[in-house]
């Protein structure tokens, strides 16, 4: 059970974060959404679907989604969601390496504080 839990969390975090980074890269190529009428939003989504990065991202997020379903079958929602926030560290590192985003000191500080909060929530689940 422990091994299965670790394996599923690994898939949720690595595949989920990797998928989001791929989707982010595809959306960067599509450009900014300015017009919020339904027709324009649909055209915007279709433009996104023409990006290969989008499909890789969606596939990785699908793996993460089914892993989430599996782990929710035997764990509390209020345990699973905070632990999956380990992806914050992975997300920040990935955004810098893969998307070329510059992460300011303040933003690192925010990510650090968020991670401390997530850790407290995780510990609260164990005691």
């Amino acid at each position, binding site marked *: 059970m422990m091994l299965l839990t670790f394996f599923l969390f690994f898939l949720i975090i690595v595949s989920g974060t990797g998928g989001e980074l791929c989707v982010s890269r595809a959306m960067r190529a*599509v450009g900014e959404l300015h017009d919020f009428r339904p027709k324009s939003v649909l055209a915007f989504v279709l433009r996104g679907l023409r990006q290969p990065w989008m499909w890789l991202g969606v596939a990785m997020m699908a793996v993460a989604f089914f892993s989430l379903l599996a782990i929710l079958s035997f764990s509390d929602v209020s345990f699973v969601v905070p632990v999956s926030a380990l992806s*914050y560290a992975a997300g920040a590192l990935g955004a810098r390496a893969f*998307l070329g985003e510059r992460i300011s000191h303040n933003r690192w500080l*925010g990510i650090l504080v968020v991670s401390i*909060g997530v850790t407290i929530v995780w510990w609260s689940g164990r*005691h």
Partner: protein
Amino acid sequence: MKLHLKTYLAILVIVIFAPMGNVLLGKGMKGVGSAATWTLAQFWPLATRILGNPYIWLGIGCQLTFFVAYMSILSWADYSYVQPSTALSYATVALLSHFLLGEFISPLRWLGVLVICTGVFIVGRTAPRSHTVPLP
């Protein structure tokens, strides 16, 4: 629409629909049976049971709404800005888990949620966009 206003609107949709989706999926999956006992031979009966559960479909609907908002916001804001901002959804998850699923949220867990919200406030004070040159 102003950059900050539409950013905050998208974050609002994200922090409501993503936790709602998780809670509904959790409620649906609790009726399926533990994944620790699943075998390959059970694949079709399991898939039928999961896909026949209305909570799973409601959860997927919420997650799709979240996903469209998330895709939109990533077209103008940094991933490293968006991802921590969505941490507000931990407060929503705690509230929904408590009121809809009856999960016990200890004072220590509420403290963790407060610390997360402080982190979100710090991240929210940084500029939404740091890149000026589009990726090739």
